[in-house]
């Protein structure tokens, strides 16, 4: 289960080498914004060696390459894909054609390397107004796309508005991204909360994202990882209730009841669907009934 994604600068060894031990479900090894243009070559070689050598078995590996409007993205993929990262994150994805262009290059690389098709999945980073408007087309542009990721910093610059802690300026984008991703059947990740010293604000922001339907959230600080994991994990009460729902449904079916109620409330199809989602999430985290951590 991928709740948290932690950004790690791709050319900073003392951060990279500890990245797998910071509790995140996934690490994003960054070749883009965290690396100056004259250090792109150094970063991609360092990230390649890190993936090959270090133990990332505790988390998924995502590599954020440079965007398609640069001269770097093909060299990034040529260097990184042979290491089989779980995901490639494509920044500044604005159109379905962007996904298709990257997908075609990845498909050719996988064939050349003898990898099974779709070995490496694609996570478009949507951070422009055009990208938000095209979110569903982007999510469905290739089978390789498994998740969307909202980047609010560049987006708000594109929207010509201030980025604030209250995040009202990205309400529409958040809602649009969740609907597009869910309609396409892929996961969706929320933008990082950038004040690393504001744990309270961080938790409120994560709860807002979870309430909207996001699968998880990215972070630029290891301090935020535990908060994100907690917010995006089912609680003990939620897990117990989910099992109660399924038991009530099973009992009702055995008794031939057409309608079932629990705690005075009718259990309808959406409640059952949510209960199944909660149990699936709990099982993915290794939690059974009454075992939530």
């Amino acid at each position: 289960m991928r709740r948290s994604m932690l950004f790690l600068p791709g050319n900073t060894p003392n951060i990279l080498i500890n990245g797998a031990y910071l509790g995140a479900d996934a690490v994003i090894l960054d070749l883009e914004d965290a690396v100056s243009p004259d250090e792109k070559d150094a970063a991609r070689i360092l990230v390649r060696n890190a993936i090959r050598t270090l133990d990332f078995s505790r988390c998924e590996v995502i590599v954020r390459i440079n965007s398609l409007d640069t001269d770097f993205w093909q060299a990034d993929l040529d260097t990184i894909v042979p290491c089989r990262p779980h995901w490639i994150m494509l920044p500044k994805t604005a159109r379905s054609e962007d996904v298709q262009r990257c997908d075609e290059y990845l498909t050719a690389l996988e064939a050349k390397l003898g990898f099974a098709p779709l070995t490496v999945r694609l996570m478009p980073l949507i951070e422009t107004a055009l990208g938000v408007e095209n979110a569903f087309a982007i999510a469905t542009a290739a089978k390789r796309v498994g998740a969307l990721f909202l980047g609010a910093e560049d987006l708000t610059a594109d929207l010509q508005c201030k980025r604030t802690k209250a995040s009202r300026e990205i309400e529409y984008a958040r809602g649009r991204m969740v609907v597009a991703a869910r309609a396409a059947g892929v996961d969706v990740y929320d933008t990082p909360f950038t004040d690393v010293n504001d744990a309270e604000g961080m938790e409120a922001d994560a709860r807002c994202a979870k309430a909207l339907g996001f699968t998880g959230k990215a972070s630029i600080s290891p301090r935020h990882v535990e908060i994100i994991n907690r917010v995006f994990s089912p609680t003990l009460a939620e897990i117990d209730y989910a099992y109660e729902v399924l038991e009530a449904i099973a009992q009702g079916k055995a008794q031939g009841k057409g309608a079932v109620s629990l705690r005075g409330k009718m259990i309808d199809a959406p409640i059952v669907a949510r209960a199944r989602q909660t149990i699936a999430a709990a099982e993915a985290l290794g939690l059974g009934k009454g075992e939530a951590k």
Partner: protein
Amino acid sequence: MKEIRKKAWAGTMESSDAYVEVEPAQTLAVELQSVVQAQFGPAIEAAVADVAAQCGVTKGRVKVMDRGALECVIRARVETALLRGMEE
């Protein structure tokens, strides 16, 4: 058979990193400064020579200032410096 054509460098002097300088020379020569020279000096020098061989470099001076970097980091910095030094 490739050689270092110009002076180049890669990496930093920050902790867990290595700073690598390369420059033209008639033979392949490795110079190492490391806080763990006594324990890992020969292993690091072997790794540097291995990266040079993989890059096909047979001529050049490679100076490594290790700040407690893992081998994969040293290898990355050496490879980057060699590639930069081989550029026209």
